[in-house]
C-alpha cells in the first residue's frame, strides 16, 4: 500500500512543478487593449441608447398628443369630411360605423369618392374571417361601400336590417 502511494507521488510532484512554473504566466498585454476597445464600443452604444431612451420617454406623450390633435383638425377641416352626409346615418342606428378598408389619409385625399349600396354574400364575409352560420350561408347583407373614382373600395358599412351583430 505504501509502495502504491509512493509510486504516485512523482506524478503529483510533476504537476506541482508544472503549476509552479506556470504560476506567473498571464495573457499577453495586447488582449487588454482589445478588451478596452470592445468595452468602449459596447458602452458608447448603450450610452447613446440610454440617452435616446430617456429623452424618448419624456417626449413621446407630448409628441403623440400634438400629432393626434393635428390629425383630427386636419380631418375635420378636410373638404371631404366636411361635406360627407354619410356620417349622420350611422348615428341614427340605420347603419353601422364605417369600417376603413384603406388608410384614413388615403380616404381623406380621395378627390371624388362615391357611395354604392350593395349586397355582400355571407360566403364572402366568411372568407374575411367573419363567423357565419352554415344554414344562412346563402344569405347576404346590405352594405354601403365607399369607392374611389377608380373603383377602389375605401370603406364599408352595413345597413340596418342586415342582421349583423
Amino acid at each position: 500500500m505504501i509502495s502504491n502511494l509512493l509510486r504516485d507521488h512523482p506524478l503529483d510532484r510533476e504537476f506541482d512543478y508544472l503549476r509552479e512554473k506556470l504560476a506567473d504566466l498571464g495573457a499577453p498585454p495586447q488582449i487588454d487593449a482589445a478588451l478596452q476597445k470592445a468595452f468602449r464600443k459596447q458602452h458608447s452604444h448603450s450610452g447613446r441608447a440610454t440617452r435616446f431612451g430617456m429623452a424618448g420617454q419624456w417626449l413621446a406623450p407630448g409628441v403623440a398628443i400634438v400629432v393626434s390633435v393635428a390629425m383630427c383638425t386636419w380631418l375635420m377641416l378636410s373638404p371631404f369630411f366636411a361635406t360627407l352626409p354619410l356620417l349622420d346615418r350611422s348615428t341614427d342606428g340605420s347603419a353601422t360605423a364605417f369600417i376603413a378598408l384603406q388608410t384614413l389619409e388615403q380616404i381623406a385625399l380621395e378627390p371624388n369618392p362615391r357611395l354604392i349600396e350593395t349586397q355582400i354574400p355571407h360566403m364572402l364575409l366568411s372568407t374575411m374571417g367573419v363567423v357565419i352560420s352554415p344554414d344562412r350561408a346563402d344569405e347576404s347583407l346590405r352594405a354601403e361601400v365607399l369607392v374611389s373614382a377608380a373603383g377602389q373600395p375605401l370603406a364599408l358599412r352595413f345597413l340596418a336590417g342586415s342582421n349583423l351583430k
Partner: protein
Amino acid sequence: MDMPLSDANLDLDLLRRLRSGDHAALTSLYQRHQGSLYRFAILRAGSTQVAADVVQDVFIALIENKLKFDPTRGALLSFLFGVTRNLILKRDEAERRFLPIARENHDNDANTGDNDMIDPRPLPLEKILADARAEQVRQALLTIAPHYRDVLILYEMHDMSYVDIAAICHIDIGTVRSRLSRARAKIAALLGADQTNQPANPTPPTTELRRPVAHTKQEA
C-alpha cells in the same frame, strides 16, 4: 462596516457593474480570471496564440453580454472555463476538417483499446517554458486525448472539484472519476517511459503499481 464579499459574490458584483458600464469592474474581473483561463487554454490547446485568442473571445463575449451565466449553477470561473473549453473545441473541430486522410486511416487501425492516445501534432508553439522538466509534463499532457486532458488539467492544475469539472465538461461525476484515473495512468506511463529513454508505450509497464486517483480534493 462593509463585510468583505465572498469570491462568488465579488464576481457577481463585478459582473453586474460591468454590465452597467463600470470600467473598473472589467479590469478587476479580467485580472481575477485571465491567468487561470490562459493557463488552462495553453495546456489544453498547446498554443499560446490560440490561448490568447480564446481568452480574448471569452472576455469580449462577457463585455458584450453574450454569455448566459446562471450564478445558481456554479461559480463564474467554472462557467468561464466551460466557455473557454467550448471555444477550443470549436477550433479543434475546424482544424480536424483539414486533417489528412492518412491520419483517419491511422485512427481506424488503432482499435485495440488504446485509441485514446493521439499523435502529438506539430503545433506552431513557442516554447513557453524554459524548463525541460515542466516542458516534458506539458508535452505529455498534449499527447493524451482532449477529453482526458480537460479533466486532468482542471483537476491537477486548477483545483476544480469533480462537480465543477462535470459541469464544465458536460459529463457526469462518474465519468470525471474514470477519465481522471485513466488520464493519470497515461501520463504516468508517458513520463515513466520518457524518463527511462524508452519509446512511449501505451501499455503501462507491468511492474508499475497503480492506485485509484487519490481523492483528496473536495468533491462537492
